[in-house]
């Protein structure tokens, strides 16, 4: 309720802080929204196969993600979408295939390498650090950018404090952007689902990723929350220039947001193209509606 009563005030507060986010983004070369769609490939997976014991999760899937686009990965349940994200950020090691990120070919990603080279993500079942506050969760996203040693942290003087404040400022800007000021110091385990999803997005953004993987960011949300989330996704993409790959079941959202869509079924790629192309692909229609025999 309190959020609603604040609504008239919210835009006045958001605009300048969003401008700050954009100012931050301006300093990065890829920030120019006009050049958003390029043909430069940021990440490509070629012939990736993944199996657990005898179960094939992904078989011989290939696709690419271009710099600056919003790429949707869709498919029925169990199609291997989440597994694909797990392969991309190095949680699962595929048995076959090559992953190229920013021109560097690898047989598999490693979580730490993926994180340092600019891939961050959110999770299907919110994977926040439940015992920590919103602020701490997002500050944890800045870990890679903080480098003051244990000694300074133990004494908490000079460089460590300066560093802490510097990153706090960045995080506070993100908090403004995501409109979660009021839950700054609440342990996230106590938050409702919709807000948790938002905090998780904030945590992923705190890493200042080049490629943001969103695993069902709108699952279980009501219309209003979905609209908010869509707005965030678009703003992130356009003003920060972050490339986004998202998994989503809501076809309306997928068709509206994404530039290109890849469709998986039983671990195989069955279609790839613009939303309109995919929508009219007979194989996709079969996958979703079933084939008449």
């Amino acid at each position, binding site marked *: 309720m309190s959020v609603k009563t604040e609504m008239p005030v919210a835009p006045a507060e958001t605009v300048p802080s969003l401008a700050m986010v954009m100012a931050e983004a301006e300093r990065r070369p890829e920030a120019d929204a006009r050049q958003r769609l390029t043909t430069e490939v940021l990440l490509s997976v070629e012939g990736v196969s993944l199996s*657990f014991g005898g179960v094939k999760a992904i078989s011989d899937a290939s696709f690419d993600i271009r710099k600056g686009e919003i790429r949707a990965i869709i498919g029925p349940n169990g199609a291997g979408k*989440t597994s694909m994200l*797990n392969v991309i950020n190095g*949680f699962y*090691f595929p048995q076959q295939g090559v992953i190229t990120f920013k021109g560097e070919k690898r047989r*598999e990603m490693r979580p730490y390498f993926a994180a340092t080279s600019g891939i961050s993500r959110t*999770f*299907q*079942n919110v*994977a926040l650090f439940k015992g920590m506050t919103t602020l701490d969760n997002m500050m944890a996203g800045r870990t890679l950018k903080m480098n003051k040693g244990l000694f300074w942290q133990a004494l908490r003087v000079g460089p460590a404090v300066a560093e802490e404040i510097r990153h706090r400022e960045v995080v506070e800007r993100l908090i403004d952007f995501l409109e979660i000021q009021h839950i700054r110091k609440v342990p996230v385990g106590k938050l409702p689902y919709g807000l948790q999803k938002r905090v998780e997005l904030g945590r992923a953004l705190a890493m200042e990723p080049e490629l943001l993987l969103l695993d069902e960011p709108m699952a279980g949300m009501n219309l209003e929350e979905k609209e908010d989330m869509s707005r965030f996704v678009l703003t992130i993409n356009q003003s920060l220039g972050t490339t986004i790959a998202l998994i989503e079941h809501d076809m309306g959202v997928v068709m509206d947001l994404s530039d290109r869509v890849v469709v998986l079924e039983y671990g195989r790629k069955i279609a790839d193209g613009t939303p309109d192309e995919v929508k009219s692909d007979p194989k996709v229609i079969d996958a979703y509606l079933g084939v008449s025999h």
Partner: protein
Amino acid sequence: MTALSIAIPGGIGAILAGLMFTLLRGDRKSAIDLAVHIFLAVVMAVFLAFLAAKAIDNPGGFLEILVGGLLSGVLYSLVALGFVLIFKASGVFNYAQGAMVLVAGLALVRSLDFLTASGVATVVAVPLAILFSGAVMALCAFVIEKWVLRPLLNQDGLTLFMSTIGATFVLEGLAQMVFGSEVYPLKLFPTDPMILLESVFPGGILVNKLDVWGGVIAGVLVAALALFFQYTKTGRALRAVADDHAAAQSVGIPISWIWFIVWLVAGIVALVAATVWGTKLGIQFSIVFLALKALPVLIIGGFTSVPGAIVGGLIVGAGEKLAELYIGELIGGGIEYWFAYVLALAVLLVRPQGLFGEKIIERI
């Protein structure tokens, strides 16, 4: 010397085989993993080669220790079995197993003392005492299920584990307060030594009758449990609960009842272990630590595997006796005290799921 000259090449061969196995297994490993693997392979091979040398030197003596170790290991298997049952059925890693052995033992020995002191014939007194301590274990199972486990339903494993540490303290305190806290001798089984295979080895193999009794009883109990779980309704329900709590509940299996049964079975297993250990050492507080060795046994065998518990117990029993006698003389005695734990640590580093456990696939 001849023995060493055979064993050392054997050991080097074992190291090479271990290395080949490690390198060829195909799992991608970090440098640390590899280093740890190689280190452990070398230590293991040296240990085995050393044992082999000893075995060749004096086969009779070696076999004597091995058999003694295996027979005492059977009891570890038995206690570990109680752990596995509880872990499978309720996801609880039960630290209180040792305390349960103590409770069972104290109840048994004190009621037996009381009955014989009041003039009841031994033939009657022993079954009565066993019945009484069985009832005490049932009470324990009931109380733990009702007041510890049920309120903690769906908590994570660590919380449950810590709650069993709490239960351990309550059980230890109560049992000693009610039954007393001294060393109480128990004489249920013969403890005189006997000699086997005299015709094969000079002097034969010296085995304690008690160990043989323990082995036989444990074997019977394991067989009985296996039949119970395989062929009774409760056993089937229990396997269902072990597989999936929620699903079992949804088809109408009373989960509290199943947990009670499991804890009761674990209590009876503890009682059996207490009779054998009590005859050997007397019922005393330190029995708790003996029973606690079922923890490393589980790690070695795998948390969820009944055969794992049995094999793990045998490995630990034989390993610690052999280590105590052959290595203990080199670095000072008392190795038995930690050998099982360090062995478990080594297994954890190489095969975290244990020898018989299933590989864990993590999801997110």
